């Protein structure tokens, strides 16, 4: 099951209500069962979000680390904070809350939704699939390494959890600091068994790049973005490797898309400018979240025909690398060693 956003073209029909100057808001859904650490993740993203202007929607305000002195304005439903972020109450339900929130649309670039422990994150991500003022970010599904197997065995939860696992672009395995090795291994096996195409990462406590991985900022400034190999960013992350590839020949789009899907469980972060036979596209991928947007400069710089991409991946990258070499890519700077 593909997890493309389902939108045909950002300049397609139905766009007229969106002002040309406004970039769509990136919409990220954090799902997963009760106790998997969703609120903690929201708190970490808020704390390490850099310049990102977040609007967060959570079930329980009280669980957020919000210093009351930072609250600059509130209308009961929407709370504005001194750091530029906005918190929105889910009272009255997600539909009403989202309509309220979107009235403040010029005040944030990212929406983070903490899904309730029983909701299907796919049905929430549908908001971004249908509303052209939003764009699909990641559907991140958290799983508690100590409890996943038991939770899946509970007949009262089984279907709910299945839906959650099926909706994930990426899995975040949590509580690995208190889980036994056997539990972690079992949880990984379970996740891989249910959704073999979804990458599994663990949360590292000192991972400052979490926000960049889960809520990539370059989605919002892709027009000015220049792809270049940058293997320092992720040096401290365990078990991750990166490759940088270039291709001087036009790339076959179908074949490239097939590789994106085939290796989605390995691709933690892929980005690049891909010169397809028909057009140049900016490519972003995190796990099953695959996104192509037209490259704005493709007509301005006819001399620059090269495709370039980098991939940060879990485990070894040989298989992905081989497949891309067969498509005509060559190594730009191999950093997988």
């Amino acid at each position, binding site marked *: 099951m593909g997890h493309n956003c*389902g939108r*045909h073209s950002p300049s*397609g*029909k*139905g*766009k007229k*209500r969106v002002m040309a100057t406004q970039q769509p808001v990136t919409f990220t859904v954090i799902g997963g*069962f*009760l*106790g998997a650490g969703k609120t903690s993740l929201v708190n970490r993203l808020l704390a390490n979000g850099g310049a990102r202007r977040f609007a967060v929607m959570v*079930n*329980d*305000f*009280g*669980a957020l680390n919000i210093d009351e002195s930072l609250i600059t304005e509130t209308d*009961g*439903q929407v709370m504005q904070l001194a750091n530029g972020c906005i918190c929105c*109450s*889910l*009272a*009255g*339900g*997600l*539909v*009403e809350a*989202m*309509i309220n929130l*979107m009235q403040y649309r010029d005040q944030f670039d990212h929406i983070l939704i903490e899904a*309730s*422990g*029983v909701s299907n994150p*796919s*049905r*929430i991500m*549908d*908001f971004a*699939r*249908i*509303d*052209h003022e939003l764009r699909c970010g990641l559907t991140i599904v958290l799983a508690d390494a100590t409890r996943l197997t038991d939770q899946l065995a509970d007949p*009262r*939860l089984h*279907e*709910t959890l299945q839906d959650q696992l099926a909706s994930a672009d990426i899995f975040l395995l949590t509580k690995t600091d208190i889980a036994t090795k056997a539990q972690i291994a079992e949880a990984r096996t379970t996740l891989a068994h249910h959704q073999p195409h979804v990458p599994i990462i663990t949360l590292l406590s000192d991972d400052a790049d979490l926000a960049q991985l889960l809520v990539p900022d370059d989605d919002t400034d892709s027009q000015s973005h220049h792809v270049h190999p940058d293997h320092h960013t992720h040096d401290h992350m365990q078990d991750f490797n990166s490759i940088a590839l270039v291709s001087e020949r036009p790339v076959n789009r179908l074949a490239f898309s097939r590789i994106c899907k085939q290796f989605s469980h390995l691709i933690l972060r892929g980005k690049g400018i891909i010169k397809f036979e028909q057009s140049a596209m900016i490519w972003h991928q995190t796990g099953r979240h695959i996104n192509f947007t037209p490259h704005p400069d493709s007509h301005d710089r006819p001399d620059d025909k090269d495709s370039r991409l980098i991939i940060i991946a879990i485990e070894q990258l040989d298989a992905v690398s081989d497949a891309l070499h067969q498509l005509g890519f060559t190594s730009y700077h191999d950093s997988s060693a």
Partner: protein
Amino acid sequence: MTKILVFQAKKIITMNASNPYATHVAVQDGRILGAGTLDEMAMYGAYDLNDSFADKILTPGFVEGHAHAMEGGVWDHPYVGYMDRYDPEGNRWKGATSMADVVDILSGIEAGMDTPDTPLFAWGFDPIYFGGDRMSVRELDQVSTARPVLVLHSNGHLLNVNSKVLEMAGITDDTNVYGVLKDDAGKPTGELMEMAAKYMAYKATGNPFFGKIHHHALEQYAKSATNVGTTTATDLFATFDEGSLSAYREVTARDDYALRLMPAMNTLDEGFEDGIATLKAAQKDNHDRLHFGLCKVMTDGSIQGFTGRLKWPGYHNGAPNGLWNMPPEQLAELVMAYHKAGMHLHIHTNGDEASEVMIDAIEAAQTAHYRPDHRHTLQHCQMADASLFRRMAKLGICANLFANHVYYWGDQHAAITMGPDRARRMDACATALREGVPLAIHSDAPVTPLAPLFTAWCAVNRITASGNILGPEERISASEALYAITLGAAYTLHMDHLIGSIETGKYADFAVLENDPLECPVDAIKDIPVWGTIVGGIAHQARARKG
């Protein structure tokens, strides 16, 4: 002390077991001094006699333990349900028994609207009675193609819109999103389900049912109540934002407000501690006509929407099991926190699995923090079997059963959702009483009409819309049903010391009826005309029924 007022009636049914019938009731300062003969009432002192009800029957004012104040507000918008309904002003809205009826009703209203862009919202649409027919833009475009037209289904899950709404929402052939239904040619039919599709429609048109409760809705809610003899009603899913709280306070502060209102706070709006604090703060403003204290918990969905959580073997037609509003584990934590804090829970459970999970949760809470008289109530509790009722009785859990369901959807439950056997025990009033569970019955207005005598008729007769008797063994007697809509409901609200019977010291709240519900044929209980109510000793006449 004001002067004593004595009401004379043909018969007063008191629901007070030690003094069950009377002809006169003495009232002072809005409360009942006593009931008996005129000679007995004269013993309280000088009095004025009101004999205008001398040919009528008085019962305790009816208590609606599960309805919504939105019942007052929905009538600002056209009703297109299948069955006839009366609005708070007494106007009859004829049922829409075909798609063409819906179009006719809406076209008539559309023609009378003077502003061209104002969205037309209709509610109550229930195509479950139309076989397989589904509404589409084809029908609603006959109403208007220039004005947004939206039709909300009675099940709350579906929404039909016209092509104008689709255009405003940017929903086209290219929209491939779950919940946007399409025809064989790939065109959106205008039927929208799930959150995202409805979000897009409401984002474009607004939704008059969003946001805080309005004064007007509360005013109309009291009128609806008066029309059917109800003197105390819940608003059983309330958001306690400041706007709504002010509306409750301001409207009920008026001396002529003809209803005692009991809003139940939605516990899912806030974390446990904050919610408990919010409720305790609100309770400081309680007065005779406003009683904060109830807490609402949503667990599963609905049976006819296939979202109720069922035990084995699940839905009769093989539909997958329903949806939780919150993980069972978290629901249990919520029950524990609110129970420990001394709160009074009203818990929505439709399917038997949901009921079981909540009974487990209350058992755990009672085990950890014993409270002798908590009166937590399972609301709807439609599919509980005898074993669950036995546990409820042991644990002191009350049941407020959705008796109206038997009439409105009983046929569908027997054929589609529950099958012939389990449908017989839906809303099993007789089993609840037999097993010793305190019982109330309700309408869930505006889902079904606010009308306690109709609700009592459902519990007594169990006749479905098609005329079948569904589970005759679960029928209860007229007096048991009358108890359930008065003292029984009052008990579940922890208000039985103040309302529910005509008894010294209680509020002088009466339903004024033209016939005796205990003497009339049981199939005529729903047809008893209601003159109106007396609330705190003040008479309020029902609006005349028109149309």
